[in-house]
């Protein structure tokens, strides 16, 4: 090793160090951005009302289960949780079943009005739900799907569909058509080529748009509050009552609303990571 080369290496080690520092700080900051609010939510959920209302805040939870016990005894909360999960799951399935073929068609076929179609899909998000909820509710009551999780899932699917279509559209566009053509020459038809070649490649992306659909449905309040009565979802059941509740119950209620969604995202995270190229299988 000559003097000349070491001189070249040293500054690059410095920049690498600095780069590493920026990288680590960035990662820590991003994690803190997500984790610190969740941690405070947890602490306040596990605190007595007096501690929640006092300052400064402690960083160690005192494991007072009063607020959570209150919700454990809250009439109807389990049914609402079950409904929320069912609606979110149905929204997820329906938005993928309808959205993925639309995304495939947009990326593979040329047809008249394609650009207009893409715009129209986005339009379903252009109208605020409080505006749509009244005519929807009237129609639902008349057709008899009022107050069913299926009816609500239909509305949530409409909300999630633009994301499903656009995400899958860019996924399919990222896969060269040559792959499919190769499969056709080897004896596949359109369907089997899709199933054996394309589907495994796009599965992570489809998971991502499924998560999107799940979260959209999970967080939606207004349509759920208007369109369901006996079969309320957790957000409709709880969220609109929380803003006027005492602080310690707000925290506990918020915690209950957040945890199931977190568990779900954790459960499907390996498909997500696979999409970003970090294999975790």
């Amino acid at each position, binding site marked *: 090793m000559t003097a000349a080369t070491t001189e070249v290496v040293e500054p690059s080690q410095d920049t690498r160090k600095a780069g590493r520092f920026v990288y680590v700080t960035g990662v820590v900051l991003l994690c803190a951005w997500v984790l610190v609010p969740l941690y405070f939510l947890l602490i306040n959920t596990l605190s007595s*009302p*007096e501690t929640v*209302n*006092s*300052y400064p805040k402690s960083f160690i939870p005192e494991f007072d289960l009063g607020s959570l016990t*209150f*919700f454990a*005894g*809250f*009439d109807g909360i389990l049914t609402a949780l079950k409904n929320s999960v*069912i609606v979110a*799951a*149905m929204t997820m*399935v*329906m938005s993928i*079943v309808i959205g993925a073929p639309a995304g495939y068609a947009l990326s593979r076929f040329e047809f008249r009005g394609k650009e207009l179609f893409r715009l129209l899909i986005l339009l379903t998000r252009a109208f605020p739900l*409080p505006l749509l*909820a*009244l005519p929807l*509710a*009237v129609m639902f*009551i*008349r057709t008899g*799907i009022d*107050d*069913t*999780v*299926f009816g609500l*899932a239909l509305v949530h699917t409409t909300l999630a569909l633009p994301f499903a279509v656009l995400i899958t559209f860019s996924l399919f566009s990222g896969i060269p058509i040559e792959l499919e053509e190769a499969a056709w020459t080897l004896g596949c038809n359109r*369907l089997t080529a899709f*199933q054996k070649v394309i589907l495994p490649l796009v599965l992570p992306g489809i998971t991502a748009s499924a998560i999107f659909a799940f979260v959209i449905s999970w967080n939606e309040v*207004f349509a759920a*509050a*208007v369109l369901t*009565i*006996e*079969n*309320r979802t957790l957000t*409709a059941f*709880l969220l*609109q*009552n*929380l*803003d*006027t*509740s*005492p*602080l310690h*119950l707000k925290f506990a*209620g918020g915690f209950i609303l957040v945890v199931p969604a977190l568990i779900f995202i954790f459960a499907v995270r390996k498909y997500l990571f696979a999409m970003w190229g970090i294999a975790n299988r």
Partner: protein
Amino acid sequence: MTLLSKVIGAASGIALSCTAISAQAEVLFWSTQAKPVEEAQAMREQVLSGAGDVDYQPNDGGPWITRLNAELSAGSGSIGVLGALHGDFSAMNPDDLVNLDDLGLGAASDTFNNLAKLGTDNTLYVPWMQASYIMAANKKALEHLPEGADINTLTYDQLIAWATNVKEATGEAKFGFPAGPKGLKHRFFQGYLYPSYTNGVVRTFASDKAVTAWEKMKELWAVTNPGSTNFSFLQEQLLNEDVWIAFDHTSRLAAAFNERPDDFVAFPAPAGPEGRGFMPVIAGVGIPRTAPDMEASKALIAHMLKPETQIATLRATNFFPVVDVELPGDLPPSVQAAGNAVAIMSASPDANPGLLPAGLGDKGGDFNRVFVDTFERIILAGQPIEAVLEDQKKTLMRIMEETGAPCWAPDAPSEGACPVE
């Protein structure tokens, strides 16, 4: 392919089974009141436990009215009984509410019973419970009371002096006012400040006396916690001691008294040159014309008006009975404190009770907006008082003329629409 078909099969299976489950035997109680989770729980477990099968569902105003309108225009529905404030009912079309004359129920107060007719000849809702706005203070603030002041006969000048003393002693402005997005500040102007200073609300909106009232409000705001524009439930700020002296709705102060009964006192709203203005809050129960089981709905309303239900409601929601009942001695601290303050307020020699705005129909929100805008322009934006009042007066006049609403107390009665003088 198999996976896909399985998924589709499962989804349609779930869908079908869910559509199939729709058994309905209970009465749906669709309410805007008793919304906080603890109150909703108490309504279900204590108030409605003896009323048969009742599904109590408290909602935000938006979903409440949207669902109701949807059922009314679809011509069939599941809502059995409506529970809401007088203002919510008065915004409805009277034809959509069932005539409740044959129940023969009503409040002890004829004023309330007349309000419940919504300008028609029939009872369209039955008064259910009442509340009011009062003051509450941390006991630490009491030593700073100006000389000669008694909290039970406080004037606005003394309140300003008191809050100034507290600010000088602690270095922080500790008067709290519900000026947050969900705060009920408009009621303070309509039922407290204006009646106390001008002996009116609509007629005197832009009078010289109103200018004085807003000048006092400016003085008060100078010693008010600037965070008040975020405060909507003063019980929170009383408990965390950001605020020592507060004005709010009795049920929005309740948690402070219930959690630390020995630390707080409740007392009447202050008095101005025209007396001690104050205003009731009335909630009622009514039946929409689309109710599925009219008999069950009427039975539920009758249950809500029973003396023992009224006391259970008081415990659950901190709203007081509207019928004559003997209150038991073991009520929660918040109820005792608020009950005392309201009693002293209405019995005080200078009492100047006002009424809720009536006859405004769906313009109730616009009417409130006039007062909120005036507050924001004069107090928050610092615009000149006379100019703002002249400007807002036009909006107020338009609302009154469009609705033709006659004057209500403390304004002198009018023939036809209440004039803005």
